[in-house]
């Protein structure tokens, strides 16, 4: 076991996958010689050669478009979009092409690829370096969407994503890259070095897609979340005196509905938490499913805590970010309902 940041876990997963399978290729803006603006692909070019890990022109459309062709050929492209905020130029290639190729060719052509992109705010990145667009992927049939919350899961989920025969959107909460950020922006930042989940096993292992993780057991309410918000949730729960069960979805689609339903059936109360904009966010889907599946167990309406319905502001970042204070308020609300 080695201690790793999330960045190192991503790099390690790449290295393991590329070592194992010569068809895995890595590309993206600045990912080659330089190793990525977040260093997630550092040294891969040196180790595997320029044909396995290379820089691309600044065209997200081109990156995904060529990756679709490569995947159809038989390679397994694992590409980086520099920030999720910049995936829109590639959205057509993702939605209309990657997601539907297997379907429209009745399985004759397929598109096994992983599209990695850093998401989320909390780094003073403002509206173009902070977005969490997961709901724009979960609405699209043919895509899988994964959001890890710690180095251990990151490596295993990324390896499982690379092994998957279909396109996987792999959203990396960049605020977690270097440490388990709990939303207390005004306290010293923590590092993965001192966190259990910073321990990453060497070699190949998978964390299966579609399996959620109960990261804290509890009996009074269920808090469903993913990515950065897992740590915010845990901090808020620790600071409250309510015994809240916290579930880390890990994979948004396919969704581990069973685990969610079991928990809410037990607790009777539910909060859904994410950083993305509230309206039509992925929380709406979770909420809809929970109210349908657990209607007779619910003692309070499912409560959504999410980013406001505005672009991500810069100076007001911490007013936007759904931090522990808002989550604690939500716990109180859902318990009092």
């Amino acid at each position, binding site marked *: 076991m080695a201690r790793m940041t999330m960045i190192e876990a991503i790099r390690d997963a790449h290295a393991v996958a590329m070592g194992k399978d010569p*068809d895995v*290729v890595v590309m993206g803006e600045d990912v080659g010689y330089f190793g990525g603006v977040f260093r997630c692909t550092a040294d891969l070019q040196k180790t595997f050669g320029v*044909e*396995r890990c290379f820089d*691309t*022109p600044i*065209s997200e*459309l*081109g990156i995904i*478009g*060529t*990756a*679709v*062709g*490569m995947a*159809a*050929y*038989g*390679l397994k492209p694992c590409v980086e979009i520099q920030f999720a905020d910049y995936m829109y*130029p590639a959205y*057509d*290639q993702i939605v*209309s*092409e990657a997601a539907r*190729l*297997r*379907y*429209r*060719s*009745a*399985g*004759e*052509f*397929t598109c096994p690829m992983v599209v990695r992109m850093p998401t989320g705010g909390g780094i003073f990145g403002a509206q173009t370096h902070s977005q969490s667009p997961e709901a724009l992927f979960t609405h699209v*049939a*043919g895509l*899988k969407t994964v959001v890890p919350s710690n180095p251990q899961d990151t490596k295993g989920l990324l390896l499982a994503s690379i092994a998957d*025969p*279909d396109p996987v959107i792999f959203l990396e909460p960049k605020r977690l890259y270097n440490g388990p950020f709990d939303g207390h922006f005004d306290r010293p930042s923590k590092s993965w070095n001192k966190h259990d989940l910073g321990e990453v096993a060497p070699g190949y292992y998978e964390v299966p897609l*579609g399996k959620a993780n109960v990261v804290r057991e509890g009996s009074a309410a269920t808090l469903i979340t993913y990515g950065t918000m897992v740590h915010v949730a845990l901090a808020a729960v620790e600071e409250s005196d309510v015994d809240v069960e916290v579930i880390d979805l890990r994979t948004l*689609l*396919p*969704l581990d*509905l069973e685990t969610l339903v079991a928990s809410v059936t037990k607790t009777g109360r539910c909060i859904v938490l994410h950083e993305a904009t509230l309206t039509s966010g992925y929380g709406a889907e979770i909420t809809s499913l929970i109210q349908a599946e657990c209607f007779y167990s619910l003692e309070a309406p499912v409560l959504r805590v999410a980013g406001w319905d505005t672009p991500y502001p810069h100076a007001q970042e911490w007013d936007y970010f759904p931090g522990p204070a808002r989550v604690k308020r939500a716990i109180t609300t859902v318990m009092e309902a």
Partner: protein
Amino acid sequence: MFKERTPRLHVPEPELRPGDEPDFSHVDIPLAGAVRRPDPGENPEEMRDLAFSIIRVLNRKGQAVGPWADTLSGGELLEGLRHMMTLRAYDTRMMTAQRQGKSSFYMQHLGEEAISCSFHKALRKGDMNFPTYRQAGLLIASGYPMVKMMCQVYSNDGDPVRGRQLPVFYSSKEHGFFSISGNLATQYVQAVGWAMAAAIKGERKLSAAWIGDGSTAESDFHGALVFASTYKPPVILNIVNNQWAISTFQGIARGGAGTFAARAHGFGLPALRVDGNDYLAVHAAAQWAVERARRDLGPTLIEYVTYRAGGHSTSDDPAAYRPKEEGNAWPLGDPILRLKAHLIHKGLWSEERHTQAEAEIMDAVTAAQKEAEAIGTLHSGNRPSPRDMFEDVYAEMPPHLVRQRHEVGY
């Protein structure tokens, strides 16, 4: 100082509209044989002239002339003629079938048969086309079973893509025909990626990207050229300039200056401009580009100059936006008649054999049609199952889809 003028929006307009007399006298068409043929290995910067002319082989007398001639044997030409005639017969039958309500939609190739049929001859097994809806000739020329094509047109139970796609959006990996998307241009850049994969794997395969004149305006066209010029993989970038994009003429897509072929120059790539109604010229240009790819010299762009003689699709009536007889007036003629004339000139063909071949081909097409219709048509007979609707969204069906499928009762 200069005299300032108030700016105006310059909206390009075709010279002729419905009611006008067709007139192509302004189109600058070089004589057959007039355009030089540089070695494919020559520096692209030394051959920019080729993007501003039209490579032609067949002259008015039906002779093959000039440096681009003689890439095909008599036997191959006879086969080519048969392919084009088959495609036209197929189109005719399917247009009628659509009008009879046996299919939801159809798109024909009238006047453009030479391009896909002849291009295919320059490829070999393992190469991959990323076609648009107007290159079914690639399938016909590759020997793909016509009954299967018809089953897709009829969306019946024999449809290889299980009723999921529009009629003419075929797919055949084996026949080097990538699944057609429906979203214009998206596959242009995918073809570049496919060729990059061949280069990464070091395998001797090439890909051919296809796009229409109007669709060159899409972003994917640019993405394709950027990536192609950066990594120089073995890809041929084909533009079929049939002068119309539904109701808009090519001026809307290129602003009335330059040629589509010249788009390559900004990327340091070589470009050819070819008579798309000349089976021999198409093949010669394709072969030249194929040679570049197989010598690892990188991508080539080819613009095929042709004319969309029919409607855009069965939903379109071109009489609403252009002169009725414009198709017949197009000076580069009918590709089938031109190849036929050449073969007759060569003594390999005759009017009688042509008439007989027409009948034979139509018989074969009709027989295939019967076979396909025996399975079903859009609204009758055996059709793909609703169960198929849930398959192939993913390799393995996730729980939520299983649930939904059960809800439908499957």
